[in-house]
Each structure stands twice: as C-alpha cells, then as structure tokens.
C-alpha cells in the first residue's frame, strides 16, 4: 500500500484531530452514496476503501485501536439489498455489463414490470450517463412504491443534484458600477457646494 499519510493528504506530524478532519472530509467527498448511480461507482468505492485502509493504518500505527474498528463500517457502502426479483440484472449492473442488463430488462413483459424494474432501468441509464432518462425511471419507481427506501433515496439523491443552487456564486449583486461612482461624486459635490467647499473643481 502507498503511504497512508499521502493518501489522506496530511503530514506525518499531523495531530490526531487533523487526521480525523482530513479523513472525514475525504469520506464525505468520496462517499459511495454520492456515486451510486454514477458510471464511476466502482472507482469511487475503491477510492473509499483506500481511504478507510489508510485511516485504519494510521490509527493502528498510533496505537489508537478504538478508531480502526468503527471507521470502515461507518463510511461503508449502503448498496446492500435484501430481496430482489432481478438478481442477475443487479449483478450485471455491479459488474458494469450494462448492455446485458438492458437486454434482460427489455425482455420483461410490459404487464410484469414492477417498481424494481423501473428502478433498475433507471440505474442502467444512469450508469450509462443518460441521467435525464434515469430520472424519469427513478421517479416512476418511487411513485409505484413510495415506501421503498432504495427508490426514495435514489430520487432524493438526484433531486438534490438537480437543484444544486449553491454551486456557483451569486452573479446578481455587483459591488458598484461606474454609474454609481459618478452619482456618488455628484452627490458629494452638491453637498460640498452647499457647505461652500468644492470637491470637483471644474463645476
């Protein structure tokens, strides 16, 4: 394994608190939940694993065993599922064989398409990068079974990304324009004139 300090982006002299903060920031950034429907889900998972291992290694090195056992479980993937009608499709999606998954899903008759079918179809589209289609399918799955945690979190996840209002900076408010400065100067000049002084000498 590479240098665990390098992976967390901290110096070997960093305090425990600094390491914890660095780990938390990275874990937030690469958390598998952010990437569940992304084409790079497996890459993010690997990255997260690497970060967990690095953190555990540092904790072990510092003989602070209490962290090592909790960390990997607290920031693990939440993609486990209990019962499914399409185990093979889920397996294909996991392996990245999207065309095969799509083929099986398309083979399902119209009347036997349940909420999970729409969810998985959305997943295939999402992994392919067709996020607009994916959103439609996820919404359909959620409408059919609003109580299902998996479908609800998929829709919520996408909703939060589609209403990403804090991404940029506010472009509306400018500090002050050339006009503002001129008006300000003119006002100042009027005031000065009243008091007998002059701020602009030509008028």
């Amino acid at each position, binding site marked *: 394994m590479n240098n665990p300090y390098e992976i967390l982006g901290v110096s070997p002299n960093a305090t425990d608190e600094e390491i914890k903060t660095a780990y938390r920031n990275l874990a937030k950034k690469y958390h598998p939940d952010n990437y569940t429907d992304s084409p*790079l889900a497996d*890459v993010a998972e690997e990255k997260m694993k690497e970060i967990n291992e690095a953190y555990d290694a540092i904790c072990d090195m510092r003989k602070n065993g209490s962290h090592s056992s909790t960390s990997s479980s607290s920031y693990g993937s939440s993609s486990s599922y209990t019962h499914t009608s399409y185990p093979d499709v889920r397996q294909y999606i996991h392996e990245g064989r999207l065309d095969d998954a799509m083929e099986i899903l398309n083979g399902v008759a119209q009347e036997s398409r349940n909420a999970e079918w729409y969810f998985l179809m959305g997943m295939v589209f999402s992994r392919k990068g067709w996020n607009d289609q994916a959103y439609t399918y996820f919404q359909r799955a959620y409408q059919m079974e609003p109580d299902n945690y998996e479908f609800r979190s998929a829709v919520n996840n996408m909703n939060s990304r589609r209403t*990403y209002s804090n*991404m*940029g900076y506010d472009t509306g408010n400018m500090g002050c324009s050339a006009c503002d400065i001129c008006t300000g100067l003119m006002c100042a000049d009027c005031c000065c004139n009243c008091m007998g002084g002059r701020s602009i000498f030509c008028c």
Partner: protein
Amino acid sequence: MFGYVNVDKSNLLGKDFDTYRAIYCSLCKQLGRDYSIFARFFLNYDCTFYAVLMLSLSDKTCDFCTGRCRFNPLKKCDYISDDTVSLSLAAALTISSAYYKLLDNILDSPWYKRIFYRLLQPMLSSWHKISLKKFPTIDNELNKMTISQKGTEEDKNCNIDKAAEPTAAMLSAVFSLVDEKIDSSILKKNKNSKRILSSFGYFLGKWIYLIDAADDYFNDKKHHNFNPYITLDVEEKELKNYVLSSLNHTLSEAMLSYNLLEKGRYDAIISNALFSALPKKQNLVLSKFDKPDKQK
C-alpha cells in the same frame, strides 16, 4: 458550440489567472506554428480548457517567457516557451472542430452566409489535412460526431440524452486520449484514470451540448430548427426549471468524475471553471428564459 467553458476571473487568484492567460496565448501561438497565422482566429476557450487539463496533469513543467502578441504588438504576454504535445493536441482539436462546424454550417445556413463559408472552406480543409495526419483519433471522433448528430436529429423519438450522446461521446474519447498521449505520473498511479477522464469528458461534452441547446432555444423555435428542449413534453413556464435541472445534473456528474482524478498542477483553474464559471454561465444563459418576449 464554442466558448462555454471559460474561467470566472473574479473568483480566480491573480497568479492562476495569469497562468490561464498564458496558456490561452500559448495555444494561439501553437495554432500559428502548426497551421497558419489565420488559424489563430479559431482559438476558443473550450480548447484552452482542454489544454489546461493536459498541462495540469503532465509531468513536464511549463517554462513561461514573456513575448509580444503578433495581433496586438503593444501588449506583452506570457507564453510557454517550449513546444508541448498538450498544446499540439488542443490545437488539433481547435482546427478539426472548426472544420466540421464549417461543413455543418454550409449545409444548414442561408445562401448569403453559405458564400462566406465556402470561401473559408479551402483554407480550413488544408489545415484539417495536417491535423488529421497529426492526431487521426481526434479527427475521426469529430467526424463520427457530425454523422451521428445528423442521425439523432432525424430520429422521431429523440430525447435529451440521445441528442446529447454524439457530442458527449466525442469529448469522452478526446479526453481519454489524454491518458495515452501525455506522460503523467499522476495518471499512471491510478489504473482507473482513463475511465475517469472518459467519464469527465462525457458529462462535460453533454453539458456543452445542453447549454448550447438552451442558448439557441428561442432562435431554433422561431426558425423551426431541431432542438432537444423543443421536443420535450413540458409546459412553457416549467421549462426553465427543467432545463436548469438537466444542466445541474449533468454538471454535478462532471464534478463527481473530476473529483476522482488526482489533483494536477493547475487544479485551481480547472476547479474554478467547473465549480464557479460553469454555474455562472448557466445562470446567464437561463436568464433568457425569464424574458422570452424579448427574444422573439
């Protein structure tokens, strides 16, 4: 379809902006060196972003020197002093995309504009031959994009994702070329870097296509041209929100992909473009939807 991916100057550090400027000028100079002095007119921000990405990841550090601009001799500007593959690649992308855009314009434009484009054609096609020889992959990808774009526009059940696919796939291939052409220890360290670059390019290309479609929406509607947002089954007053959501969604995917990449030398510039300049651009383009009457 050009000029959407720039930087947000007010939120960029002075030194980073100077570097960005220098790369912009270097790409301009490279166009002059590889093609012709007139090729410099086709310089654009999107290809500069591509150059910044490559120079950021490359092992070779850039040496900057100060020189004078040939178009504006009174102004001094910084250049990268040595010839690099990154700049050549970005220059090839500039020329090839300009060439295919021209071919497309010749087919689509009214006759008086067509005369102008026809005059440009011999010049661009001679440069295009050079770029084809240098980097055949870039040229092939752009060619493929032009052909499949025509196909999707004629498709009856076309949706946003389908319409954006050709541009997205093109940029995806062009970005994954970085992994092959650039010597980079950052990329070599990670076995997934090609996939990450490819996905980053995919979503960025898709975003460029979508923002261009949003920008042209009222114009296309007036002239009955193809636009993926016109075919949508969404009410007029809901449309702005829908367009914004689809852009946000695509951009956030591009950000997620970029986050997985190891940070390069010019991460500040790329992050500024992704996290600040592009959302700003979205707001700017979408402000058109608030006052549609003016556009008509």
